[in-house]
């Protein structure tokens, strides 16, 4: 593929979340003494480490979990944080990537399905603000949906960032020439990214094709309690 003059090659960037706030998505799923605790939230890695224990203690106290959970929660958070920090020194190539982000989550009674494009190069992007606006625009009443949406977006961005680090390492090892197009093709292996070139070439228009419209429209479903129970039972069966 030709390297176009307009799409200059972007040098490697130090790993970080490609968002305005470098926040890490943390997922917890701890089972102990017959109780299961599942949670997902975002954490700021620049906060001091004692915050982890404080958070664990408060959560256990607020949710009235047995105190054995404190250490487990703290450990889980710490390990995810250190994984994140392990990536931090390394390079990643973001390329000219616009990726589709998919939302498919259920929070209490609200079901959200959505897909949209996200510019990975925009380091000023803010999933939190996106989530807030989404919930406001869709009139979502449950306030727990917002954080879940932000978390989902962050998780996907995190995944892609990790992959780009891996691909950067691969390309360095294979000692190929530094060409932006190569990285573009390497990242295509993830199967999801699109090339700006293709998207905004003068042959195609910016307006989305009709058949894609349904895919990119947000869908909010309010479930009844029975549907929720049914879904939960199904999930648990899958988990086992």
């Amino acid at each position, binding site marked *: 593929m030709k390297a176009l003059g307009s799409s200059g090659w972007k040098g490697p960037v130090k790993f970080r979340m490609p968002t305005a706030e470098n926040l890490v998505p943390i997922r917890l799923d701890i089972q102990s003494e017959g109780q299961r605790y599942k949670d997902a939230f975002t954490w700021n890695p620049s906060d001091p480490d004692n915050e982890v224990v404080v958070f664990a203690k408060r959560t256990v106290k607020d949710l009235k979990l047995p105190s054995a959970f404190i250490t487990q929660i703290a450990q889980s958070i710490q390990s995810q944080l250190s994984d994140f920090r392990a990536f931090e020194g390394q390079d990643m190539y973001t390329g000219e990537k616009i990726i589709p982000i998919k939302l498919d989550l259920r929070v209490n009674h609200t079901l959200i399905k959505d897909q949209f494009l996200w510019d990975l190069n925009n380091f000023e992007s803010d999933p939190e603000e996106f989530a807030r606006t989404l919930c406001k625009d869709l009139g979502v009443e449950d306030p727990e949906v917002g*954080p879940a949406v932000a978390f989902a977006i962050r998780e996907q961005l995190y995944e892609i960032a990790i992959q780009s680090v891996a691909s950067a390492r691969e390309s360095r090892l294979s000692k190929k020439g530094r060409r932006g197009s190569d990285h573009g093709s390497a990242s295509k292996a993830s199967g999801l990214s699109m090339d700006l070139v293709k998207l905004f070439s003068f042959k195609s228009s910016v307006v989305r094709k009709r058949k894609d419209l349904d895919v990119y429209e947000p869908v*909010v479903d309010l479930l009844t309690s029975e549907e929720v129970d049914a879904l939960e039972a199904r999930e648990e069966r899958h988990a086992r």
Partner: protein
Amino acid sequence: MAAKASDSGGSGEILPITPSLSETTSGVTAASQSTQPPSSTSDVDAVCVPSYSRWFSWTGIDDCEVRSLPEFFNSKSSSKNPKFYMYLRNSIIKQYRDDHPRKISFTDVRRTLVSDVVSIRRVFDFLEYWGLINHSSSSSAKPLKWDEKSAGDASSEPPTTVKETAKRICNGCKSICSVACFVCDKYELTLCARCYVRGNYRVGINSTEFKRVELSEESKKVWSEKETLQLMEAVMHYGDDWKKVATHVTGRTEKDCVSQFVKLPFGEQFVKESDSEDSLEAFDQIKGSADLESGGSDKEGSSPNKRMRLTPLADASNPIMAQAAFLSALAGTKVAEAAARAAVTALSDVDYEAEKNASGDPNRQEANGGEITNSKRAWADAKSLIQKEEQEVEGAIKEIVEVEMKKIRDRIVHFEKLDLEMERSRKQLEDMKNLLFTDQLNIFFHTRKARKSEDRVDVQT
């Protein structure tokens, strides 16, 4: 099945709060209990906010918020801005108030706010500290800072460990003395009862050197009459030596003695001699201290008793001030005032000669020419200037008064002259009247004579 965006349910409530909160406010009521119908602010429970949090307003940010949570206001990151802070703060408070009086927990809040959890925690702690959340009017007035070490509830008192300051540890067995202990001041030993009995002390010490000190709780707070009397005696004898005083007073530590002595009402002045003697001595001392900066040291020897008695009061680093303080306390306010005034005038007289004031100071003394510091000289300068001005003013007033008097005198003289004139003219008038009268009389007589002579003539012919 699929609800389109335009048709989402239940968002019709309009609550009187800034628009950025709309999704959380209506959401809260739906989330908390699915069976309850969403009720807007129908609850009449008043939410009480402590008075030290009066600054809070929904739409504004106060200084204390900026100070306590600087991360939102230092513009280091574009998303951590004041607007975001207000979103967090207002959502938390709204959520709490919707469910008032139930206390809101951090986890409740962080699950509903789109943000990283540590920022939420900081805002939450800040609001809880200031009583804007989870404040119950029955709890103690002081807000308690969330202590990470205390795993207990934030609203309960942190476990206070009362440290007994007067706890005595036995020198012999290193255990805490409980009921009674034995103190030897000579070698600064404290022994518990057991060690004392066993003779667990150094070779050179006699058992008679020890004094028994009771450690029961009651004797700590209240000083009995006997103890107070002992204290006063001890102070009179030993003065500044609090160790000896403590030994004299059975059962009290040095600190206790000192603090009790300070608390004693000094109007009583158990140990004072006669007033006048004191005042003269006090005055001499002050004068002496005015002369020399450090020359007060030889005065110290003269009345050690008095000085030592009151050193607890005057704990100033400046020795002269300390001395002046205790002397003034000793001598009483009026005498001290007079003495101070005299000292002041004496000071000003030291370098400046006699032309200064004769303005009624009762105890004018010649000061021995000693050293005076620059500040004192400047102060004396100022004093003399003030006096000069006063005199000038007085002179001016005198002159004015004289002039006025002169004016009045002149007028009086003038009036007197006029008066004299009047008298004279009156007299003249009178004289003239008299003359006129005599003239008239003369004429009358003449006419009468003439008529008579006419009549005679008529008769003759």
